[in-house]
């Protein structure tokens, strides 16, 4: 039986070492993500229309807006799943508008999806192990002639996966097939996948949808911990205003493909345009 350390907030390779908490200084820092006049249309439908904003490193930013505002399309553009028609996306100083998902990932960005799609016939642990990158065993030469090295790396990835499962409270489901997970558990598995690497930026597409309130509080704690301990920048699309209020220092509101507001959660709740377009009467 493999053993691994008790839960803490650092990656396994950093346990026991000194990890300096990142002190974000949003005002002085260069943005880690810039979206500049981005446009994306499908035939006659303009999903993203001259959208611009910046995200500072080590921050948690909420991206909210009415259904159909173009939030998920924008995440697809930032993460390389779709190409922009016009405009630029700059990630950590690199122009990434022309890159596919693999290229964007190598600049340190990972994402989750609104509808998680784990591989159903693999266990929860196997789904996570699959997320480990640069696996030497993927090369036939290594698999045949360097089994020791391959096995050692596999063990490290399994250790990492077990730590992540413990961290997101899915460890008791490690040997269950992903097909039996509930909607909320699939969301957690998605989040867990982002922790298998050391990303600079994580895009979360509705991490709270379908997640129980108690579990949601834990998810909020975990996201905040990852920002503090590892300096990860989060851009979160979410409709749950409890999650947005607790986590997001800055909130960007999109409507009809464009950014219509950037500011604090409190300021957003006082903005008449946002109230009319998005929040509705319960926030008046």
């Amino acid at each position, binding site marked *: 039986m493999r053993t691994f350390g008790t839960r803490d907030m650092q990656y396994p390779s950093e346990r026991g070492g000194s990890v300096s908490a990142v002190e974000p200084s949003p005002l002085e820092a260069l943005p880690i993500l810039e979206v500049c006049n981005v446009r994306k249309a499908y035939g006659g439908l303009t999903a993203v229309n001259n959208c611009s904003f910046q995200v500072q490193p080590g921050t948690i930013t909420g991206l909210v807006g009415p*259904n159909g*505002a173009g939030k998920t399309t924008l995440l697809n553009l930032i993460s390389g799943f779709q190409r922009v028609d016009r405009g630029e996306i700059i990630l950590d100083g690199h122009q990434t508008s022309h890159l596919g998902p693999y290229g964007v990932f190598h600049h340190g960005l990972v994402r989750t999806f609104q509808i998680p799609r784990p591989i159903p016939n693999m266990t929860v642990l196997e789904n996570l192990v699959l997320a480990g990158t640069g696996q030497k065993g993927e090369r036939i030469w290594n698999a045949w002639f360097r089994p020791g090295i391959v096995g050692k790396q596999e063990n490290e990835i399994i250790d990492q996966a077990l730590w992540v499962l413990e961290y997101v409270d899915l460890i008791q489901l490690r040997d269950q097939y992903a*097909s039996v997970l509930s909607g*909320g558990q699939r969301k957690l598995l998605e989040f867990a996948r982002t922790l298998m690497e050391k990303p600079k930026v994580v895009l979360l597409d*509705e991490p709270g949808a379908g997640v*129980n*309130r*108690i579990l949601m509080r834990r998810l909020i704690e975990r996201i905040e911990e990852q920002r503090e301990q590892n300096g990860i920048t989060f851009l979160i699309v979410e409709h749950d205003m409890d999650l947005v209020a607790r986590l997001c220092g800055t909130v960007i509101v999109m409507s009809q493909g464009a950014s219509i507001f950037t500011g604090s959660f409190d300021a957003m709740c006082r903005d008449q345009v946002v109230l009319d377009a998005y929040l*509705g009467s319960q926030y008046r």
Partner: protein
Amino acid sequence: MTETGARLLDAREIVSGYGEVHILKGVSMYVDAAEIVTIIGPNGAGKSTLMKAMFGLLPVHQGTLVLDGTDVTGMSTERLVRHGVGYVPQTNNVFSTLTVRENLEMGGYTRLDGLNDRIAWVLDLFPDLASRLGERAGRLSGGQRKLVAIARALMLEPKLLMLDEPSASLSPQMSEVVFEKICEINQLGMAALLVEQDARHALAISHRGYVLAAGENRFEGPADMLLNSDDMRRLYLGG
């Protein structure tokens, strides 16, 4: 809130799950005519599994399901739909390559007549869909797809509408709209069974509620009692 009527759905000691994994370990619940009932509980409690089992999407290994006086245990989904049960899944809930109108037509596939009248009726209820009838459902946002799925489920005028996480992925404004619509539908005499993580909102419009945990009944009672219970707030409603 509408007056409720006779017993519509009665589920007793339901055991169900995926393959050999039993998620539900003997869950019982009922829904009366014109009643709104909400099921809440932690993730993995078996809430969605219960709905799928009651809609014929998962086998019922043990227990009985009685709908409007008829034993429907093990009945196929198609026959349950004809018996007046509608279901809106949490995800994958539209035919993404079909237009919104075609999705509605698919929802009314077994109607012998009045298809266009019924489409007009659901568009009155969801006017936002009227301008999107020709759009492919796969192009819609997650929230808009949810509205299409609810509208489609209403095409056959079900006696009982089961909604799995109706407010998930919806904006606060749209979420409010959906809960209002559920109340409107209920006032027309339709019963609704909700699985919902926004438990406060869902219980606020419900007559009764059930709490499931680890595939078993944990609490049940009038919705206002569950909402005001300290234990419920601490354990399931998030303080």
